[in-house]
């Protein structure tokens, strides 16, 4: 049909083009927020520890005494060249923190997302398929409770039950101190590092440490997916083409799983992109609760130490991950959504 929809190519190009202003707004917001607070990042981090004259000297060295527009230009220039700054309290390159600790967060969030999908999608399918039956009531309650419970509360409960009472699982760290001390850091994703080294005891140890934090974070989002898939399954089952399939004698199982379910999953892909941002913020709380050495944990430490230079760099990294993950999800959505046509 002439003029109907936009071409896939145009859609993708438009989405890529939108990334530039999105990133610029993000960077500008972070820059402004860091400078609106009284004082400067140096006095916030070192105030009370060193004489005022030294604080002034360091602030001058780091350029905090220059005009704001100059600071902004230098800031953008550094970001474009991958320089996210250096922490004030312990002199670490933020880029290095993102690389090393970001790998730990990636490990946690991927595992959590798997848990969320494995629990949430089948759960949503079952509750949608057997609507208004006991299984639906239980499933909905399960989803609401999980979604409503703060992630750190769930985490503490998990630590107490599975760690302290049942003694089944470790309650902190990415691995035991011994494993961390001996395992070679190839990728800083310890599951992969253990596989690379063919260190099976280390792999078992790392997986055991991953269970509680991944389950905690994943279950919170499983509640979201469960409810979303349920609603979409119910809606899809009411569509005309489903009625037509039933009228043609297609078996109910095939109607549900081959026709309705696939279409019900399309919005879930979009939500995954939105949930990535929430997953990262949830990771901050989860990592702090479980002493998981991810980037969220580092953000918490630097916030406590008032190292705003570090906070700035990490928040920018978070923001960029969300922007680009959303872009990727939009790409995937464009391919699977049949409403985007080639002209």
């Amino acid at each position, binding site marked *: 049909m002439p003029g109907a929809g936009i071409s896939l190519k145009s859609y993708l190009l438009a989405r890529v083009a939108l990334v530039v202003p999105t990133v610029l707004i993000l960077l500008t917001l972070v820059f402004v927020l860091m400078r609106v607070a009284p004082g400067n990042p140096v006095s916030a981090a070192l*105030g*009370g520890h*060193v004489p005022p004259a030294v604080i002034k000297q360091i602030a001058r060295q780091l350029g905090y005494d220059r005009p704001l527009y100059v600071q902004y230009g230098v800031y953008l220039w550094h970001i474009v060249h991958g320089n996210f700054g250096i922490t004030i309290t312990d002199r670490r390159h933020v880029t290095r923190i993102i690389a090393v600790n970001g790998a730990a967060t990636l490990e946690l969030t991927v595992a959590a997302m798997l848990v969320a999908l494995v629990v949430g999608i089948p759960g949503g399918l079952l509750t949608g398929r057997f609507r208004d039956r006991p299984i639906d009531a239980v499933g909905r309650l399960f989803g609401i409770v999980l979604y409503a419970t703060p992630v750190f509360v769930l985490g503490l409960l998990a630590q107490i039950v599975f760690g302290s009472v049942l003694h089944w699982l470790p309650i902190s760290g990415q691995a035991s*101190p011994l494993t961390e001390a001996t395992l070679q850091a190839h990728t800083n994703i310890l599951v992969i590092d253990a596989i690379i080294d063919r260190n099976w005891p280390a792999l*078992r140890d790392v997986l055991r440490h991953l269970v509680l934090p991944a389950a905690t974070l994943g279950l919170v989002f499983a509640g979201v997916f469960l409810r979303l898939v349920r609603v979409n399954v119910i809606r899809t089952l009411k569509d005309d083409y489903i009625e037509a399939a039933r009228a043609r004698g297609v078996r109910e199982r095939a109607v549900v799983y081959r026709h309705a379910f696939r279409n019900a999953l399309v919005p879930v892909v979009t939500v995954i992109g939105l949930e990535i941002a929430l997953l990262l913020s949830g990771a901050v709380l989860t990592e702090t609760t479980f002493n998981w050495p991810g980037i969220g944990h580092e953000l918490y430490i630097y916030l406590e130490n008032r190292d705003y230079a570090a906070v700035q760099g990490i928040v920018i990294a978070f923001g960029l991950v969300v922007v680009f993950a959303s872009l990727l999800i939009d790409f995937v959505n464009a391919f699977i959504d049949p409403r985007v046509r080639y002209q």
Partner: protein
Amino acid sequence: MGQGKPGWRVAAATLVLVAVAGFGGVARAGTDPQTPANTLIDGTTDTVTNIDPSGNYNYGTDTVDREIFQHLLGYKPGSTVPSPVLATGCKADATVTEWTCTLRQGVTFQNGDKFTSTDVAFSFERLIKIHDPSGIWSLLSNLKSVTTKGPYSVTFHLKQPQSTWEYILTTIAGYIVDHRVYPADRLLPDSSTQIGTGPYRLVKYAPGQDAVFKAWKGFWGTQPKVPNLIITYFSKSSTMKLALQRGEIDMAFRDFTPTEYASLAKTKDLRVLKGPGVAIRYLVFNVTRPPANSLAVRQAIAYLMPRETIANRIYHGNVTPLYSMVPAGMPGHIDAFTTVYGKTPSVAKAKAVLEKANVKTPVAITLWWTPTHYGEASAEEYTEIERALDASGLFQVTLKSAEWATYAKTLGAQYDAFQLGWFPDYPDAEDYLVPFYGTKSDFLSNGYSNPKMDAILGHEKAATSTGERMKYVREAETLAAEDVPIIPYWQGAMIAVARPDVHGIQGTLDPTFIMRFWLLSKS
């Protein structure tokens, strides 16, 4: 409609069973972990800044440095008197402005380089040159120069007489580094190999996660009893407590909340070990602004300070009441505040001193405290002080708080009376007096200045014998109690919590506040 094939149901049920069994398998693969006998794992909530000694001024980093590096002088367990380490002895000349140390021979760094006087001179000069804001260079403010005479003799030339210079050599400022490895004008990054002469080598350091040490076979002294040491960093004490209870770590040193200590003391298979501590807590007055510019007001508050209640009810006995800025157990300590104000609060005496000075009551006063630097109990601590002062009918207290970054910049510049704590750079009475009572020290910005006190402190620094120095220390404590620009009220204990197979901790709990991991053992 025909019968559905049960195949997928069977497959789904099998999948669920396998998942549950797998989870159970992974979960039950171990019950409570047991750390091996050749490895000691310590948990802490301390943080590490720069491992390079020239860039560190916090306890957590000092703990790491202490395993790798050494000083010219140190402390034997249980003693607060500096004793030989890398130096076999240090002596001052008659003017107490030149200190000459004879160095130990046959010592090598962990990379095989020989330890000589060049390394000593380099280490001190470098600290001053780098002048890092996170470093402790201020402790060397009295150092004019360092000269060497041959490979095993070094002389420190001071600007002013200082009888406590040998104590300075025991601080973070006195760590000795290899001049062939460490840059003269900047810090060595944490990612580089740190080289010292200490009993342990740092083999792996993951910031915020752990520091892994291995005993160094070439150490000149006694080998550590446990060959492997891991310090694991926790961001929350509650997580550290669970890890300790589960056996994931062998011990924990610094720091739990008072409530957590009380809970751990009741936990089977855990021991809470206490020794004398050196951290103190005190209330500072700005003596230039009303109402604290009135000596009578300050004295009245000193009569009412509820030390016992704070120590027992709020800190569950983990701190002890303090009656002098110099903590109990330190040479020179006297209970000066007990002598002047009595041991227990007295409303009658507080009232009398205010009446004598014609001060109208109730006196309105604002007390400041900070919730983000001195632990969770600070709120209760200051609520208790407020309660005690208000209950006397003589004061009307307003409590205010500020977050540390703002609080630390403000102190006496704006606050009339405020909370502070102190942890010494070196375990000597001088470090509890000079920073607080000397006119030239602007540490508190509280306006206190007494020429008589300055004279006493000047005599103390220039004293040529310990006996003479302690005489001036006691005089300073007495005058401090009479002038009362500061009211000390508690002294913390050195506390560690450990599993029963860790030995030797009690022997290292002393006023130097050093956790000597190399002396600990495991059965």
